[in-house]
């Protein structure tokens, strides 16, 4: 047994001690080198041989994941060096089947931000290279330059592309007004949702009418966006209609309606009070919650604590509602006392 144990131990030692030393040196020396490089503030110019090597690496079509990332790294360095071949070299990276690699190319294009880079980004959005949400983030960051390119997306055969076109036009209230309104009737519910959300950044009677129509959409997520947009565009005029959504069967729609009504502030109170008589418990509860959020409940409790209306709100708000309002008012009184 001694021989076996000793032999195994020696083999392990022969492997592990050099490994530990080598790794330790790599860590410490590597880190010192990194720190030294970081301290050097001037950027080093790439020599022609280094550029040629990077171009070769960027041109390669690697099969391994490692190779793909090396290609991305090479491309990044060529971008930093403003190399003329970048527009040609980046295209295959953008078309890489690995969405993470393609997304890296998207980020590089976003950093470049030139006309050709925007055109490539829009093209990538259409063709589905990489993550569309990342392309959208880059295009939005480059606003207003991509505006004209985006309008074309609204007429694409692919509903996903129309969706992103409509979404991105949220930053361009002056563009494609009628087309965006028309998209609120798109057969694809995602497109309708995007269009109605974008209309939330615009104004006008046609916009308002299109949004109101979508409050009754058959898809719950379209109603979510419609509720938020209605609050923003139509203001208090839409409050009674939005308040109706407090009885929606979907939690997200009810939440969006509450958000929209909260955003209207005290102006929403009459519509909310009307909901207190609603047959749906969730609608009554939601109305009470928003009345609390806009400050109506606290002021009523301070001014007229025995008001029957306050009782109705307490009833609608659920068992803890009265207690919570009481606790909040006690805090207010205590603060007033302290201030006095």
């Amino acid at each position: 047994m001694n021989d076996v144990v000793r032999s195994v131990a020696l083999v392990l030692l022969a492997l592990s001690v050099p490994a530990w030393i080598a790794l330790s040196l790599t860590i410490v020396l590597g880190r010192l080198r990194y720190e030294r490089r970081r301290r050097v503030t001037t950027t080093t110019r790439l020599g022609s041989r280094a550029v040629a090597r990077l171009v070769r690496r960027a041109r390669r079509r690697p099969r391994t994941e490692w190779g793909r990332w090396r290609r991305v790294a090479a491309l990044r360095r060529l971008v930093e060096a403003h190399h003329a071949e970048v527009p040609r070299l980046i295209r295959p990276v953008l078309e890489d089947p690995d969405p993470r690699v393609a997304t890296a190319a998207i980020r590089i294009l976003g950093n470049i931000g030139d006309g050709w880079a925007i055109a490539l980004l829009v093209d990538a959005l259409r063709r589905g290279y990489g993550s569309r949400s990342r392309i959208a983030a880059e295009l939005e960051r480059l606003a207003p330059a991509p505006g004209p390119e985006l309008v074309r997306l609204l007429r694409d055969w692919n509903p996903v592309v129309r969706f992103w076109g409509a979404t991105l036009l949220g930053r361009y209230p002056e563009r494609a007004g009628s087309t965006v309104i028309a998209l609120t009737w798109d057969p694809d519910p995602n497109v309708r949702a995007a269009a109605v959300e974008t209309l939330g950044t615009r104004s006008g009677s046609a916009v308002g009418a299109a949004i109101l129509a979508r409050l009754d959409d058959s898809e719950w997520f379209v109603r979510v966006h419609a509720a938020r947009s209605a609050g923003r565009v139509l203001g208090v005029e839409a409050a009674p209609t939005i308040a109706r959504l407090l009885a929606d069967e979907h939690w997200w729609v009810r939440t969006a309606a509450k958000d929209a009504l909260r955003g209207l502030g005290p102006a929403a109170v009459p519509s909310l009070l009307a909901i207190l008589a609603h047959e749906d418990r969730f609608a009554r509860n939601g109305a009470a919650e928003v009345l609390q959020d806009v400050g109506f409940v606290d002021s009523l409790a301070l001014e007229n604590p025995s008001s029957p209306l306050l009782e109705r709100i307490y009833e609608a708000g659920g068992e803890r509602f009265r207690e919570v309002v009481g606790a909040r008012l006690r805090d207010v009184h205590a603060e007033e006392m302290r201030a006095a």
Partner: protein
Amino acid sequence: MTREVLTVLVLVCLGYLLLTNLTYVALVLVAAVENVVRRHERASQDFEVLGESRFTIPVSVIVAAYDEESAIVSTVTSLLALEYPEFEVIVVNDGSRDRTLARVIEAFDLEPYEVFVRRTLPTGEIRAIYRSRRHRNLLLVDKENGGKADALNAGIDLARYRYVCGVDADTVFDRRALLKGMRRVVEDPARIIGVTSHLAIAQNPERVMAAPAGRRPIDGRPFFVYQHLDYLRAFFNNRLAWSRLGFMLCSVGAFQIWRRDVLEEVGGYSRTFTCEDIELTFRVHEKYLREGRDYEIHCLPDNMGATEGPDTVRKLVAQRERWQRVIDETVWSFRGMWFRLRYGAVGLIGCPFYLVTEVLAPAFEALSIVSLVAAAALGLLDPSALVLMLAAVAFLNAALTASAILLEDLQSRTYRVRDLVRMLLLAPLDLVLYRPIMVWARLKGSWRFLRGDKAWHKFERNVRAAA
């Protein structure tokens, strides 16, 4: 007869040692590839764009707090300072017996508030809800004690957003933690359902996180250095590799991002296990693989913050015996996945790996100590051979530890050079100074698992100096 039995035992333990270490070396190689890929990916990441984009998916951060009066304010402060376009922080006070509730109310100017709570997941009774007058994205839920899983479920019921991030109340987070965690998710939210990442360990997390990356100190006491090294090994040598091989089996409780519909679909965190994190990860894998669904759960190599580590041996043993217990409970509970082709890498590699290197480890470690000592005492094993063997194991551990440090440093450059040197020099002594505590804790945990103990045995919080 005794001699023959001892010889067999020593050889079996030797075989176990070689098998596990070969596995670890293989995992390190896989982890290195994953680390490089993630490093490239991160290098081409633009956190500024991600942090300002309206397309970055909003997240509800849930902090489960039980008797955390010393740490909770720092934790919530660090969360409110996160660089992220849209998020909310939901602190769930799980019936704390100390001043956790009062401290949060005072520090963040909270007022009572009533909000409709969806009862998607059943939880203990909610006593009150508070919201901050200063931070509109901060909510506090005060509920009766029901355990961490119950507290997290209560947070999920209140969460507004599609992704939830469960965090510990004793952790101080990096400002970009959520951006780093969500960067993979935003690229493929349909497939990436869970993300976890690496945390540093410290006696006083505020002090560590107050320093910028690259200058973060490591607590001076070797006791903390060893705990930190333990974390580094677990994350960089193992979880990165698991992530790459498709069996990331433990989303850590201190930082775990999940898609909320997944949590709701599996019934939320389970209250029947000692801890909630590992069991949930197993359960999600089991469900998705059984139903043949396409999904990914990732461990990222980014440092997300620093979490408080126990500062005494007694506290450390209490913590680690609990971890051992929950591993045993979970691996046993999901024994239906072991070696089953249907469960892919999880069933064929992940579960057996856990079984061999975690569940059976305490037994083999104890057996190794007993048999080696007995063999030496009986003259079967030469003392010089014993010393050589111990040295070999110590350096094997040190090499694996150095690999983890290298992967971390290449990825984040978090720590100072002198701390790197200190960690590297302390690594070979791990076998003598730290491992015995772990062996004892794991044995204790295994014993308690066999006895059916499911108590949390929360360790008492460290007394912190002002940051």
